[in-house]
């Protein structure tokens, strides 16, 4: 259920909980947490989303109220690492629909209208058709999961997502045994997504998973971050989060889901097939043809924060390595 703004005490408890789980809190994080709480007060008083830290209110651009989401932390699937601050997560990311610079999604996404939202489900499944967001996502069963996110560009973050396991959505459609793969598409609205006016990628953005990957309990359909609805720049109103794959697999603002027998083509693979494979599992041993994937820069570690080694499957090898037993990960990168 969606909480109204005056019911945010649970959110406060959640923040306290995040603080408790930290062994050592770097000073930068303390600032961000307090800023976070300040924002919460602003939500209460104004009912509009705005933010301090020198970031202008209008640049967040959401005209609509950002609702708070009630969720339960799933400790089994949450890392104990310190999450990145809300400003880190919402001002620095790739979403080429809004431009190619990492500040572009935050700067250029104010025109985007994620409400109301419907998703077209088609292909090899018993139940297909057009569904409203609320039909797909059970807002009473939201989970919070703190996942690592590793971008193919060798930077990484830790993000407290709110969402529901992807399998719980997909099984509702009763896919046939012929549904070996699932493809996803981002909405195509060049008038609201200025990046789509140039053909830098094959629009609409397309991504795909094998049915086994999609049904894996770690695969999440996210609708929020830090207990709030997703902002436009992060893929509102719903996006995938596949934590053991490079970030570009976690497709944003999804409005089409298709069950199919053959492996789907994906936007980055169409753009540069030798650089971006269908699987795109995080793998420090398989370099991008133009740069190394052995290390990553964790955002928020500051000016002199050293790069850290990248882990196989982004640290989720124990959970997901079985999905790829017998597969040559150098060939199927």
């Amino acid at each position, binding site marked *: 259920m969606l909480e109204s703004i005056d019911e945010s005490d649970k959110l406060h408890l959640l923040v306290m909980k995040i603080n408790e789980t930290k062994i050592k809190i770097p000073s930068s994080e303390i600032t961000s947490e307090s800023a976070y709480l300040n924002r919460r007060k602003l939500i209460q008083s104004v009912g509009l989303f705005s933010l301090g830290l*020198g970031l202008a209110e209008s640049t967040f651009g959401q005209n609509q109220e950002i609702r708070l989401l009630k969720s339960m932390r799933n400790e089994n699937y949450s890392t104990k690492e310190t999450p990145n601050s809300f*400003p*880190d997560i919402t*001002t*620095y990311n790739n979403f*080429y629909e809004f431009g*190619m610079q*990492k*500040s572009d999604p935050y700067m250029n996404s104010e025109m985007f209208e994620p409400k109301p939202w419907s998703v077209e489900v088609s292909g090899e499944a018993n139940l297909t058709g057009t569904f409203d967001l609320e039909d797909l996502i059970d807002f009473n069963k939201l989970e919070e999961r703190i996942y690592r996110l590793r971008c*193919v*560009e060798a*930077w990484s973050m830790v993000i407290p997502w709110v969402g529901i396991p992807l399998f719980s959505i997909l099984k509702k459609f009763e896919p046939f045994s012929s549904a070996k793969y699932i493809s996803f598409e981002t909405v195509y609205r060049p008038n609201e997504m200025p990046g789509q006016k140039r053909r*830098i*990628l094959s629009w609409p953005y397309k991504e795909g998973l094998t049915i086994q990957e999609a049904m894996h309990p770690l695969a999440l359909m996210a609708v929020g971050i830090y207990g709030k609805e997703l902002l436009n720049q992060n893929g509102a109103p719903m996006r995938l989060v596949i934590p053991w794959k490079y970030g570009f697999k976690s497709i944003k603002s999804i409005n089409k889901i298709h069950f199919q027998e053959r492996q789907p083509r994906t936007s980055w693979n169409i*753009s*540069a097939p030798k*650089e971006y494979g269908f699987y795109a599992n995080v793998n420090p041993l398989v*370099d991008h*043809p*133009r*740069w*190394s994937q*052995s290390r990553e*820069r964790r*955002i*928020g570690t*500051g*000016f*002199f924060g*050293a*790069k850290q080694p990248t882990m196989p499957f982004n640290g989720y090898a124990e959970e997901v390595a079985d999905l790829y037993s017998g597969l040559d990960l150098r060939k199927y990168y």
Partner: protein
Amino acid sequence: MLVPYFLLIFRSLGYLSGLGVNPVETIIHETGLWSIRFLMLTLLITPIAYYSGIGSIAKLGKPVGLMAFFYVLNHFLSYAMIDQAGDIGVIVVDIIETPYLIVGWGGFLCLLGVASVSFKRLENWFNQNRSTISGLVYGATILGVWHFYWQAKVVELESLIYSIILTGLILWRLRISTNRKQ
């Protein structure tokens, strides 16, 4: 010409909305971009002097070129000392593993050659080898633009514009030198 540099210093001190979420990346990208902009400007000076008929403009080549070198030096040092924390072993491996870094390193060496010639002692040599110098600046710019083009996931507009201008400059240069020989 140092304005972008001072802006970057102000930003690293937290003014003018700072360096953003990934400060190391911002510094490396900004110094790199200005390196290429000044290199392009250096190469544009000769045709500007040629067509405007104001020969004294050509004298600007050296200071603008040195400015480009200054930004390249900052670009390389911020990569080596901040991004790679000054670990020479790591830097060597990183450059070898990363094709666009090899290209960038090549460009840096070209400019290092040009800049070293700027010392007084080598002035005479410089005056006798103008074509070598301009060849090295062309080499550095080609490698620099290639490095810029190659590090991005998709073709960026700015690198595309520089590639087009650079191609035009090379063709112009070739035409001038063939005309001279005839």
